[in-house]
């Protein structure tokens, strides 16, 4: 048993800030990977960066009968890729991953390895008609304005400008999805779990189709996998006292355990196990509402001869926008749940 339980102190917040402020749009995750690599290298037994850029680390347990448990957190974030310059440093772009185009206009961005600052501009209110203001601005009507001497080339990626802040009980930043998950997995790696081989996968290209996790799982060939991600909380109060019945998750209620989504049926044994662990340890948790969406669990579940999976996510509001909001308490409880659960995983968990 580990001698201490995970805590969130100054070091953890500094690390989360570093992770959130790193730029790692799907397909170009190097900056995030470097932060993770520096942080975990002294804690793990094996370390490898695979062909797609996944950072795969193993901590070997002891004892003869132990499971290989894959813990996954994707490193990439949504953003943009520049398509062509229209002149004057104005660039056409395509969204990488899922961003509602209504969340784009007026946002500050950074582009390229040198993080050139720019803005997604839109006509000001002075020059728009009331009719124009009723319509959302489509992606192809928008440009990223980097100024005339930016020297940025088509194919470079960008995302919302780094903006991490800790505000009272809250965390506010771009890319909380999924740097919160990455930070959580890093903390877990600082402990030793003698009951299993911990296969940590910091994966690439989740936002564009769970791509990194599929090959990461082929590499590890795990007995089971737990995916650590971050999920939308659509929990704003409803008007006129009608009950909000489609909140997905709610801030402050603890880690969100998945049962199903568009890509996965989470293994009922693992869902039940997570619930039991939370209840016995007095850790608050919530069930993420079944429905659409997906996590890397969908990719991992179907690799090789199959892998039982479950996802645990930290809720946050305003997903895939310039600024998301999460609660420190939910992060703490997610870390506590995973730490407690991982210690209790034995082969009996998979018995049928």
């Amino acid at each position, binding site marked *: 048993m580990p001698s201490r339980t995970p805590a969130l102190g100054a070091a953890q917040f500094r690390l989360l800030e570093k992770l959130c402020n790193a730029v790692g749009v799907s397909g170009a995750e190097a900056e995030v990977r470097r932060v993770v690599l520096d942080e975990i290298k002294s804690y793990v037994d094996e370390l490898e960066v695979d062909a797609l850029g996944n950072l795969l680390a193993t901590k070997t347990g002891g004892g003869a009968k132990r499971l290989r448990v894959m813990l996954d957190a994707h490193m990439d974030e949504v953003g943009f890729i520049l398509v062509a310059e229209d002149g004057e440093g104005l660039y056409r772009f395509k969204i990488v991953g899922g961003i509602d185009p209504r969340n784009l206009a007026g946002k500050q961005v950074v582009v390229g390895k040198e993080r050139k600052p720019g803005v997604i501009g839109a006509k000001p209110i002075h020059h728009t008609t009331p009719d124009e203001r009723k319509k959302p601005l489509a992606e192809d009507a928008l440009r990223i304005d980097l100024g005339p001497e930016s020297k940025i080339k088509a194919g470079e990626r960008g995302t919302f400008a780094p903006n991490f802040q800790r505000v009272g009980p809250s965390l506010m930043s771009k890319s909380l999805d999924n740097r919160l998950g990455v930070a959580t997995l890093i903390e877990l790696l600082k402990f030793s779990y003698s009951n299993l081989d911990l296969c940590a996968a910091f994966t690439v290209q989740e936002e564009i189709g769970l791509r990194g996790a599929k090959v990461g799982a082929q590499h590890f060939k795990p*007995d089971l996998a737990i995916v650590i991600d971050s999920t939308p909380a659509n929990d704003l109060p409803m008007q006129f006292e009608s*009950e909000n*019945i*489609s*909140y997905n998750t709610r801030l402050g209620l603890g880690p969100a355990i998945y*049962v*199903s989504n568009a*890509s996965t*049926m*989470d*293994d*009922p044994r693992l*869902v039940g196990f997570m619930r039991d662990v939370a209840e016995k340890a007095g850790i608050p948790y919530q*069930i993420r*509402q*079944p*429905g659409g969406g997906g996590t890397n669990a969908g990719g991992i*579940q*179907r*690799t*090789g*001869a*199959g*892998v*039982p999976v479950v996802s645990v996510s930290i809720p946050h509001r305003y997903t895939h926008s310039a600024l998301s909001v999460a609660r420190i308490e939910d992060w703490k409880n997610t870390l506590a749940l995973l730490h407690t659960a991982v210690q209790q995983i034995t082969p009996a968990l*998979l018995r*049928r």
Partner: protein
Amino acid sequence: MKPLIRKLTDTFSPSGYEDAIRDVIRAEIKGLADEIRVDALGNLIARKGKGGTRLMVAAHMDEIGLMATHVDQKGFVRFAGIGGVYPRNLPGGRVRFVNGSCGVIGLDGGTFSNDLPPLEKMFIDVGASGIANHPIKTGDVAAFERPFLDLGDRVVAKSMDDRIGCAVAIESLRALKSTSNEVYFVFTTQEEVGTRGAQTSAYGIDPALGFSIDVTGWGDTPGQRDFDVALGKGPAIKIRDGGMLSDPRIVDWMIGTAEKNRIPYQREVLLGGTTDARAMQLVRGGIPVGCISIPCRYVHSPSEMIDYADAQNAVKLVVALLRPPIKLQFI
């Protein structure tokens, strides 16, 4: 075979929650196979024979269902579909949760409107008057509740898709006293949510060829078009569906075997939908596949109808296919 069909369709096991149906099938096939195992995603795998051509026969044991997404302050259960759940098949229907609770499906605004709302505007009424001691929690799983109906030549039940395929596979395994091949009967999981169990079990088994046994649609009720498959004219040998082109060698092998053994069959050209065979076909370096379909009316409704003789003839065809040595050759 009717008591078996009834037993299988009376079991509640939506995708991902196949424990109950797996236990029923495992008990049925006990002693019939040379080896029985369950894999990581819950597929039940029964091997018959050893050393010959390795072949996979898939019948999915899951069924479509519902999953609770929220219990509101007044005790009504909101839900999402598991697999292809059509709103038009729901109002007034009854469901049974895997935990045993039952309920009826109601619509926001009552049932007086002619407009069919989406699933999000429906709820399950389990008879609760509030959230205190409510029997359902978010994530609980339910399936249609509808009694088995024996109409003589025709049989009706919920989850005929694909318990009839499971029944055909079980009876084929029973009738197949010996085989020159190495046959893996796989009762697969999670077909209705994306042929997931078939994909991973096919990877694990690595067969030389395979086919699925599943239901297909029907073209023989008023207003049905563009589908030349009818109940009672024999199992349908699939040539294509919305996700898979059967290997022509498999089609020829199936048709040749049916004709040689005087088993009635139909040629199936299905425009939409697919089966486990699609997932099997694309595993590893690719596998030649086909599918034997049982024509089924009202698929994905609580009352799915098949012709009993079609199921019996499907068993004959499967046994005739599996018994002699199989060798596929390119023309």
